[in-house]
């Protein structure tokens, strides 16, 4: 059975328009709660009851999402969603920005060996200008947005896919905690 706190958190998740963070929940409840545990309980409840939604840890907060198996119907409800995909060059560019941010366009171009157009990614709110680099020409610096994390279903930037070399640098502790957290939310 769900406690009153569980039900309040679930209500907040229903109402929230963006991923709900722990501090937001704490302010609304006026107390410090073990949100990770409550989310885990709620996810178990939603699963046992066979409800079509689950709570995902994404972009530093929790978000109520429909389950993947209902995608065929929902994609009919929403135009294009689920059909439009980013191009390979856009994905490559995002990969570079995600790992090297803050990064300038010329640094991106140097890695890709081609002239990169960043405007579409800014327009899609996947990247943003984070400032200017000191030095000649003071070029613009780019970084990923919160929406980037939401779009790829990442809890945080630490959750980015690891390639072998990068995984070694990141260390195993980091990976371990991510796995635990993912278990808790699924």
């Amino acid at each position, binding site marked *: 059975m769900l406690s009153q706190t569980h039900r309040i958190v679930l209500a907040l998740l229903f*109402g929230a328009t963006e991923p709900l963070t722990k501090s937001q929940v704490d302010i609304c409840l006026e107390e410090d709660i073990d949100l990770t545990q409550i989310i885990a309980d709620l996810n178990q409840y939603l699963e046992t009851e066979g409800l079509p939604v689950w709570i995902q840890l994404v972009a530093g907060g929790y978000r109520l999402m429909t389950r993947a198996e209902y995608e065929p119907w929902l994609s009919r409800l929403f135009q294009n969603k689920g059909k439009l995909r980013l191009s390979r060059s856009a994905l490559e560019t995002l990969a570079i920005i995600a790992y090297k941010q803050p990064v300038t366009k010329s640094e991106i171009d140097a*890695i890709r060996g081609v*002239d990169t157009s960043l405007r579409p990614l800014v327009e899609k709110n996947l990247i943003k200008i984070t400032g200017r680099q000191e030095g000649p020409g003071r070029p613009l610096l780019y970084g990923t947005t919160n929406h980037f994390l939401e779009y790829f*279903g990442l809890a945080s930037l630490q959750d980015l896919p690891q390639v072998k070399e990068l995984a070694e640098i990141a260390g195993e502790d980091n990976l371990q905690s991510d796995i635990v957290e993912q278990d808790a939310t699924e």
Partner: protein
Amino acid sequence: MSYNVKLNVYEGPLDLLLFFIKRDEINIYDIPIAYITDEYLNYLQLMQSLNLQLAGEFILMASILIRIKVQMLLPRPETEKLEDIEDPRTELVQMLVEYQKYKEIGEQLKRLEANQSRHFPVTLTSDQRNYDPELFLGDITLIDLGLAFQQILEKLPKVEPVNLEIMKVNIRQQILFIRECLKKRSRIRFSEIAAKLTDRLEVVVTFLAILEMIKSMEINVSQKDIFGEIWITKKKTIQDNVISNA
């Protein structure tokens, strides 16, 4: 000789080179530069024969490959120790390895994208409600702050610009003005003239005009006591006659 090539879309010259490396199972750290250069140039020729426009980057890479090939062929000076000689391919290899890394991550992002696109957030539209601002101090950069500041500035009531019209009046103009005043009466108080003036600068310029007129002996100025009234008296001069005749 006929080619049977399946044309893929390559993101750039590095992508194309990686394709050759993968296809022919080449060790990226020991690239047979002559072979890969030939393959690369063949591909460019094919592109040209199909009238496909080649981006400048492809041509640039061709020149890099040829330069490396030449450097590999050149005899090395005997005096140099073996470990001192840098492999001309090193820079290219580094670029390829770096690019390959992000290409792989891009592919992983593609999988994440496909996965996440099957889930839909349960949410009402955001324009119906406003969050308590205390709950939202998240994803903000200096740029956002700047934009917010600009919006506030735009909302503020427009401040009337202060007019800094330098020298609205000049001495010549004020001389004519004083002459005008002296047309009807031969004697006039400075305070009477000053009363018709609107700002401090005008008063100063008018005073200078009076000094100028004294100098040219057009007028006389008298004052009974200090801080007393200044009387301006018209003198009968040639200049005056000239102007009144004109």
